[in-house]
C-alpha cells in the first residue's frame, strides 16, 4: 500500500508542475495577444485611407485592365499557407493544413498547385510533398514570423505579384486564420491575385481632385501597395489568432490539470486513510493476541 501512496504523490507533483507551465504559457500568450492586436489597430487607419483613395481615384476608371487584374484560365495556382512557428495552440495549424489539402484535392483538382509556406508548421507539413515551393525567394520565407514587418511581408507579396505578372501562376490565394476574438479563429481563403474588385463605396466624388501625374498611374502605384497590405493584414491576423488560440488551449489545459489534481488528491487521501486503518487493525490485532 505504501508503494501506491508514493506513486500517487509523484504523479501529483508532476501534474502540479505541468499546470504551472500551462498557466505561465497562458499568461505569456495573453500579453503577446495584446501586442498583436495593437499591431492590427495600428494598421487600420492606413488601410482605410488607402482604400478610400483607391475608391476616389478608380471610381470612373475601368480597373479590370491592370497586370494584376487579368483573369486567365486557372491552371497554375499558388497557395500561400500561413501558420505559426510553434505548436501547442490547439487545432490552429491543423485547420490550415486541412484546408490547403482540401483546396488541392477539391477546388483545384487536376491543376498544378504550389504551396508557399509562411510559418514553420506549414513548412513541416508540406516540405515533403511535391506541392512545396520556395522558388524565387532568396531566404527561407517560412521564417517571416521571426521578424514580422510590412517590409518583409511586402517582399513576399512582391515576388508573388511578379510571378503572377509573368503568368507563372494564374491565381494566388492566401489561407490563414482570421481573427474574430481571443477565443475564435476562422479559417479564411482569400484570393490575392487577380485583384478582386471590391464593392467600393463611392468616395467623396463631389470633390474635384487634381491627379498628379494621372489617374492610371496613381492606380498602378496604389494597387501593388494594397496587395502587399492584404498579405500583411493576413499575417497580422494570423499572428493574433495564434496567440488567441494558444491562450484558449492553455486555459483548457490548466483547467484539465486542476481537475486531475483534485482527483489525484482524493485518491491519495483515500489510500492514506486505508493504510492508517490497516496499521491500527494490525496493532489492535497484535495486542489482542498478546492479551489472549
Amino acid at each position, binding site marked *: 500500500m505504501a508503494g501506491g501512496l508514493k506513486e500517487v504523490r509523484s504523479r501529483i507533483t508532476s501534474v502540479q508542475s505541468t499546470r504551472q507551465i500551462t498557466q505561465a504559457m497562458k499568461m505569456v500568450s495573453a500579453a503577446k495577444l495584446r501586442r498583436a492586436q495593437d499591431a492590427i489597430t495600428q494598421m487600420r487607419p492606413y488601410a482605410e485611407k488607402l482604400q478610400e*483613395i483607391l475608391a476616389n481615384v478608380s471610381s470612373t476608371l475601368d480597373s479590370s485592365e491592370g497586370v494584376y487584374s487579368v483573369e486567365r484560365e486557372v491552371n497554375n495556382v499558388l497557395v500561400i499557407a500561413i501558420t505559426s512557428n510553434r505548436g501547442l495552440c490547439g487545432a490552429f495549424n491543423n485547420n490550415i493544413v486541412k484546408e490547403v489539402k482540401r483546396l488541392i484535392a477539391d477546388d483545384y483538382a487536376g491543376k498544378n498547385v504550389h504551396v508557399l509556406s509562411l510559418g514553420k508548421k506549414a513548412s513541416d507539413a508540406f516540405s515533403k510533398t511535391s506541392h512545396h515551393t520556395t522558388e524565387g525567394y532568396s531566404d527561407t520565407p517560412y521564417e517571416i514570423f521571426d521578424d514580422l514587418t*510590412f517590409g518583409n511581408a511586402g517582399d513576399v507579396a512582391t515576388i508573388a505579384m511578379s510571378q503572377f505578372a509573368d503568368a507563372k501562376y494564374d491565381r494566388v490565394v492566401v489561407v490563414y486564420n482570421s481573427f474574430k476574438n481571443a477565443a475564435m479563429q476562422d479559417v479564411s481563403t482569400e484570393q490575392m491575385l487577380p485583384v478582386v474588385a471590391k464593392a467600393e463605396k463611392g468616395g467623396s466624388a463631389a470633390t474635384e481632385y487634381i491627379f498628379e*501625374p494621372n489617374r492610371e*498611374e*496613381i492606380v498602378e*502605384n*496604389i494597387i501593388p*501597395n494594397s496587395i502587399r497590405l492584404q498579405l500583411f493584414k493576413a499575417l497580422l491576423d494570423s499572428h493574433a489568432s495564434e496567440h488567441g488560440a494558444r491562450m484558449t488551449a492553455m486555459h483548457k489545459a490548466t483547467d484539465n490539470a486542476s481537475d486531475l489534481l483534485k482527483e489525484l488528491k482524493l485518491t491519495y487521501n483515500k489510500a492514506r486513510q486505508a493504510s492508517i486503518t490497516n496499521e491500527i487493525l494490525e496493532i489492535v490485532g497484535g495486542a489482542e493476541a498478546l492479551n489472549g
Partner: protein
Amino acid sequence: MKVEILSPEKNIFEGEASYVGLPGTDGSFGILNNHAPLITTLAKGQVRIKTDSGEQTFEVNGGTVEVLNNKVTILAG
C-alpha cells in the same frame, strides 16, 4: 494645416504644419496652406515638415498623398 504620416505599422507623425515638402514621382514639390484637393504618388526620398517649432524630416520609400480640406495625409509605402 494638419499633417498625418501613416505607415502600415504605426502612426509616424501627426500635427500642425505650415509647409510640407514632398518627393513626388515627377519631382519634388511643396504644399502650403489652403492647397487644392490633390492625390499624387511619391518616390523614395525625404518628407520635410515645417512646424512652429522647427523643421522635421522623414524618410519614405515611396507612397501616396492626399490633400483635402487643409489636411495632408501621407501614406508611406
